[in-house]
């Protein structure tokens, strides 16, 4: 499992594309928002947490199809399927590698972009914590979606249609945690619920992802 993780990480860093691209996309979305809604600082401060969450979600979505597609094309996924490591473990590790290459950098960069959007100082810690808890769920759900569409030639658009509705609960709790943290109405409840979603996703979705991978490899 460790070897697979290192391989995926090395591929992500060396092959270019995926790794930096997600971050650049995140930056661009955040830069575009003030052009769209106007430079009013109070408006920006109000919508900053939501914008950052939606942008992080879209940036994570962008690199989803790389999770399995490349391995599927060159046949290494078929090798992994016959390896002693169960396919459930492969799905889990792939999702984890995706999180390290997209979710983690997004989480670390988000506060800096919050500064551009004039986010209230109180919100930084909540944004960081909520993204740290929530983005693993995005990666895991996404790897299920990627496994579902891996056999399709133009699966990218379909992938976003399938995955985005599944992101709704995570997004709600994530943005709500930041909002409540700023208001001082207690961010603990949404953070705990989001943690529950993340843990539930990591416990159950590898089985679903492995099941659809087996179907696609048939």
């Amino acid at each position, binding site marked *: 499992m460790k070897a697979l993780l290192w391989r995926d990480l090395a591929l992500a860093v060396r092959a270019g594309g995926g790794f930096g691209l997600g971050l650049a996309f995140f930056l661009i979305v955040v830069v575009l928002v003030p052009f769209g809604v106007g430079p009013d600082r109070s408006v920006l401060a109000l919508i900053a947490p939501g914008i950052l969450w939606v942008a992080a979600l879209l940036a994570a979505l962008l690199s989803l199809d790389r999770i399995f597609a490349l391995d599927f094309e060159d046949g290494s996924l078929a090798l992994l399927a016959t390896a002693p490591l169960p396919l459930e473990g492969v799905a889990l590790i792939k999702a984890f590698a995706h999180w390290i290459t997209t979710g983690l950098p997004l989480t670390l960069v988000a506060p800096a972009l919050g500064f551009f959007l004039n986010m209230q100082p109180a919100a930084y810690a909540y944004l960081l914590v909520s993204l740290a808890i929530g983005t693993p769920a995005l990666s895991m759900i996404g790897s299920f979606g990627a496994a579902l569409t891996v056999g399709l030639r133009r699966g990218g658009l379909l992938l976003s249609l399938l995955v985005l*509705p599944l992101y709704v609960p995570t997004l709600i709790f994530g943005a709500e945690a930041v909002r409540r943290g700023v208001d001082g109405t207690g961010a603990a409840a949404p953070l705990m619920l989001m943690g529950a979603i993340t843990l539930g996703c990591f416990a159950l979705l590898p089985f679903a992802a492995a099941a659809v991978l087996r179907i696609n490899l048939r």
Partner: protein
Amino acid sequence: MSIWEYANPKRFMDWTAPVMRVAFAVAAACLAIGLIWGFFFTPEEARQGSTVKIIYLHVPSALMAINAWFMMLVASLIWLVRRHHVSALAARAAAPVGLAMTVIALITGAIWGSPMWGTYWAWDPRLTSFLILFLFYLGYIALWAAIEDADTAADLTSVLCLVGSVFAILSRYAVNFWNQGLHQGASLSLDKEENVANVFYIPLLVCIAGFVALFLALVLLRTRTEIRVRRTQALLARAQRA
């Protein structure tokens, strides 16, 4: 003889032909009676005036929008466990019907909301979860359409339906957390006293019965069409080989 024998495509075609005719007749009768009764022979409600009458379309369609997804879930489970092709085809056939029901519920709700709430759309938990359900239907139908191999498509959409159901329920309760509701509580329930007065209640029940029959008839019709399409494809493939 077990119940599963009815899932044999040949037998399925035999017994569904009369059932479908009866379902269409019941649907037409119930909808005609229920809608005419509801629209012309019920009093106007004290506060809502005549706008209350949209309940005869809104509540049954919303009910069937959810039940259609539930039926797809059961059919998907049967396909995954017992591999009856008719089951997968029934799930596929139900999706566009459920999508149409969702759209009817959303549109009638918007038409009612305009005079009553002063807005066509509000980001209310119930409205939002219905919009999410609409997206789930779209994704499900799109996945069916995207995959060429029929068995692979049936397998993948079944798993999507299972996972989607869990997330649909999660979203349903997550949106409660996100925004307080404008939508009134449940109109009908099995365990509580009804929120709807008897004058409106009985025609509403007739309309619901009509929608259930209509859903059944449409799903049977579409499933039968799918079976015929499969059979034609098999015959064509055989003819090509020969």
